[in-house]
């Protein structure tokens, strides 16, 4: 591990070479919006919100998956990037059936926050209004695909942390959907442990707890970083449990 210096938005910063540009930026309070990224999970570079400009590179790079290099000059907030981020949120809003007014995650929704952050006034593309199914067969949780943004956090947390791999994605392109087991009802899944991690990492209310009504569902995905760090460093293993 080596320390190196780079410039982000004109500021000279230092970071470690095993971190990502996103890590370094966040340590220095430089905000880069993200959606599929969650501390504790592997990065997949899918939502493209964290794209940044790197001097000398023609293509944009995702901050979550790019390692810093000595002397790298990064810009995170150019007009072009802002415009692109707004369009990405526009696309997301047009893709699903998002009605904040009747959503359990209203005011606790990462998609909503991002829309405010990028200043999404209206969506210029026709809403697709897909016909998606809602699965309320699980005894504690509901999967409402209408609100899914396909960030695959649930798939990753179930695979990487819970190791049950109940979730995966079916289909491709615009027809992608989150499925449990063989596209069976969640309540009948033979692999689901009912741990609820997927529910709490979901950025919207695609996965939510039963019993919550509008604007009541609060999520706290921070737990993940805590337990994953503990696991990686074997912090809890060494303590004897009665």
């Amino acid at each position, binding site marked *: 591990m080596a320390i190196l210096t780079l410039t982000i938005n004109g500021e000279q910063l230092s970071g470690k070479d095993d971190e990502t540009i996103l890590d370094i930026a966040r340590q220095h309070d430089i905000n880069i919006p993200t959606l599929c990224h969650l501390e504790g999970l592997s990065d997949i570079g899918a939502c493209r919100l964290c794209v940044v400009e790197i001097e000398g590179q023609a293509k944009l790079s995702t901050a979550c998956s790019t390692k810093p290099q000595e002397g790298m000059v990064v810009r995170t907030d150019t007009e072009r990037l802002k415009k692109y981020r707004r369009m990405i949120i526009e696309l997301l*809003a047009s893709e699903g*059936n*998002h*009605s*904040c*007014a*009747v*959503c359990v995650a*209203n*005011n606790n929704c990462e998609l*909503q926050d991002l*829309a*405010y952050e990028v*200043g*999404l*006034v*209206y*969506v*210029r593309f*026709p*809403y697709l*209004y*897909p*016909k*998606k199914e809602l699965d309320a067969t699980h005894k504690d949780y509901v999967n409402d695909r*209408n609100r899914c943004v396909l960030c695959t956090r649930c798939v990753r947390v179930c695979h990487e942390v819970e190791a049950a791999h109940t979730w995966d994605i079916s289909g491709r392109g615009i027809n992608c959907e989150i499925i449990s087991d063989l596209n069976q009802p969640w309540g009948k899944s033979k692999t689901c442990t009912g741990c609820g991690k997927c529910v709490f990492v979901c950025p919207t209310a695609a996965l939510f707890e039963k019993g919550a009504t509008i*604007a009541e569902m609060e999520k706290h995905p921070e737990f993940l970083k805590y337990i994953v760090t503990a696991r990686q460093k074997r912090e809890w293993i060494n303590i004897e449990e009665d």
Partner: protein
Amino acid sequence: MKPKVATVWLTGCSGCHMSFLDLDERLIELADKMELVFSPIIDIKDFPKDVDVTLVEGAVSKDEDEHFAHIIRRNSKFVVSFGDCAVMGNVTAMRNRFSSAEILNRSYIELAESVGVVPNDYNTIAKMLPSARPLHEIIKVDAFIHGCPPTADQIWFAVSELLEGRLPVFSTIYLRYG
């Protein structure tokens, strides 16, 4: 001459108009500044000509709405999407996942207390469009007031700006959905 203002109720729940009335004592101040020429709360049948600002509540969900939207556009200088239904479909658009036939059947047959009938006299009632659309997909819209419903403060800010001849630019305080 005071600026002419109209408010229109397409397919929505009228919550945005309720919120407009929540301006309370500020309504009196507003009455000095503008003239309300068309609204569900006043009794005028035809949409007037040369309106300065029109606030449109609700999504475009029926053929009548679509027809009316074009009349509004032809006769207004500023058209404002008023509330989430007009801005993005919102609750009104939740029906888009079902066909018109399914919805009518659900509403008029399945949930009927006695034997239900689906109304079909389209000479007197409006026909549902295949899907409910936000206003800006039908006509050009100049400004947007978000919220379900928008708060009185949001409305006050937007209307005040418009009456000053400016398009309201919402800061993060007023940009909110739901």
